[in-house]
């Protein structure tokens, strides 16, 4: 049991560090003018995201990540080269230059591609679960997706949560309360006491957790995902944390007070946990970080060498039937 937990903790940590490094690299390219559009990072949210990813079973479960889920993506098994290729618009990537940055996925491999409109992907995950159940392939698989404090104010969020509960779907919804929706603080976003209270009226169990503590996140997701697998219906996990970056790289987050609560780097917390439990020495941690850095270097080099989209080769075809 302890070994399994340690293994999971390691996997999550590797995903967190890989995500941090990927985002730092791509942010550098953005500031050098090599990436168009924007760069949206999950700095400070890696533990909460990766913990979900490692609780899922790639190939069986569905995971529809959102804007700050790079760590969860890596933990779920998304190839880091999908990240670099999509940011750089490579034709070899899953979006082939047609969409960019975090708007990517491989829907036929259990990872729907998010659209920007918040809440929309919850309904999509519901549909994958509904269909699996109808086809008799659901088994004990689950569908997970993520949202933030701002996204819980959308109609789509409420419609989809209610529907998931009515249909008793094994939906796992992760709510990262990072205190600010772009610049808007919690007190302009919701008026209930705790963001987890949003689940109550839908009859959905809510699990609260310190989103900066990987060990706590793993424990909470483990309980929630297990409950969904066991037929307990939708589960909501609310993680409290602070986004340690702007909304995107263009944003200096000057609206976040210096003494804002939860200003904690979850990667440092995870490293303390390693040492406290004697799960890894500092040398071993350094080794893991070096391996993550190498993964990122390769992913970036690959994408940088890829061909860019050529309008002359673009089909401009929007339908499968060719209309």
């Amino acid at each position, binding site marked *: 049991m302890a070994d399994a937990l340690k293994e999971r903790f390691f996997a999550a940590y590797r995903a967190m560090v890989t995500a941090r490094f990927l985002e730092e690299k791509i942010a550098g390219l953005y500031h050098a003018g090599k990436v168009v559009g924007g760069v949206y990072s999950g700095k400070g949210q890696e533990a909460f995201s990766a913990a979900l990813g490692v609780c899922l079973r790639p190939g069986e479960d*569905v995971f529809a990540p959102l804007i700050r889920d790079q760590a969860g993506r890596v933990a779920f098994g998304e190839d880091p080269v999908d990240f670099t290729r999509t940011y750089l618009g490579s034709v070899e990537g*899953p*979006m082939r230059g*047609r*969409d960019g940055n975090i*708007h990517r*996925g*491989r*829907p*036929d491999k259990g990872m*729907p*591609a998010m*659209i*920007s*409109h918040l*809440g*929309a*992907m*919850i*309904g*999509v*995950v*519901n*549909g*994958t*679960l*509904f*269909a*699996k159940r*109808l*086809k008799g392939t659901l088994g004990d698989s689950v*569908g997970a997706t993520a949202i933030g404090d701002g996204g819980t104010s959308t*109609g*789509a969020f409420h*419609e*989809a949560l*209610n*529907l998931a509960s*009515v249909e008793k779907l094994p939906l796992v919804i992760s709510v990262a309360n990072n205190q600010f929706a772009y610049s808007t603080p919690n007190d302009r976003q919701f008026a209930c006491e705790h963001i987890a209270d949003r689940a109550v009226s839908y009859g959905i169990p809510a699990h609260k957790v310190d989103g900066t503590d990987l060990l706590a996140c793993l424990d909470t997701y483990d309980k929630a995902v297990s409950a969904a697998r066991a037929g307990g219906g939708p589960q909501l996990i609310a993680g409290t944390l602070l986004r340690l970056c702007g909304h995107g790289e263009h944003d200096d987050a000057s609206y976040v007070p210096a003494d804002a609560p939860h200003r904690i780097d979850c990667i440092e917390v995870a490293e303390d946990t390693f040492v406290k439990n004697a799960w890894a020495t500092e040398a071993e941690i350094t080794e893991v970080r070096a391996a993550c850095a190498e993964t990122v270097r390769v992913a970036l080099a690959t994408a940088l060498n890829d061909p860019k989209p050529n309008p002359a080769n673009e089909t401009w*075809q*929007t*339908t*499968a*039937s060719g*209309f």
Partner: protein
Amino acid sequence: MFIYGQDIANFGGAFKATKGLAERFPGRVVDSPISEDAMMGLAIGAAIEGMRPIIEMQFADFSSVAFNQIVNNAATHFWRTGVALPIVVRMPSGGTMGSGPFHSQSMEAIYAHYPGLVVATPATVEDAYGLLLQSIELDDPVLFCEHKLLYFHLKSKGLPDPKSVLPIGKAKVIRNGQHATVVAYSAMVHEAIRAAEELEADGWKVEVVDLRTIKPLDMDTVLGSVARTGRVLCVGEAFPYGGVTAEVVSRIVADGFHLLDAPPQRLNARDTPIPYHPNLWKAHRPTSQTIAAALRELIAF
């Protein structure tokens, strides 16, 4: 495949379109909560999983609640990800007496505006049946605009052999003429036929083209008809700003200017919300009388 929508299971749907289906196909005709956005999201997810979901909007008007899922999620999906979404959204469309502003709308032009969607607008029972089967077989999201006239008033001697029904994307000349063409779709086809019959009494032979699907839009058939008649009136029940009739006229002007003997004309509903009282409603949408009057002016040019 399965059908998901409000009141469609044991109740059989607001228009009884799914009457008896829940018993014949247990578990696959499912009542949904009143959550059009989440219903459409569910269809997208199910299509990703390889199913062919049908969503029934209780009225086309309410599809506006699902607008985001339809135009931003479903419509962009194949182009963005390469994964096709075979979804049919059935939309009871168009006006009926006393239905007012929120149970009468014709939404086809809104959806046709977006790349990635197919929009069917059958006028007859035969086409409603044949095009629905074709839409289900199609690998793309189809907005299937069923005029409520089809439920209440139109009859058919029997269902056609699906193979004999023209494919999606083909318009049909349903009445031959030589003096003018009316291009119409959905319920307006029937108003156009009545107008053509009225003008025939005066010796004018009016050709009527039923578009059948407005996206894809079969301009070959339209331009072929304009080549025969030299005069064209496009009729739609939707609001006049932009829309299907504007699209058809602009394409005729661009590609068939040399065929025209008179400026191409449009006739739509008025540019106001759809009124409740029958006196106002009848004066709001095109009718056989207003179509006939527009045709007389067109022929006199």
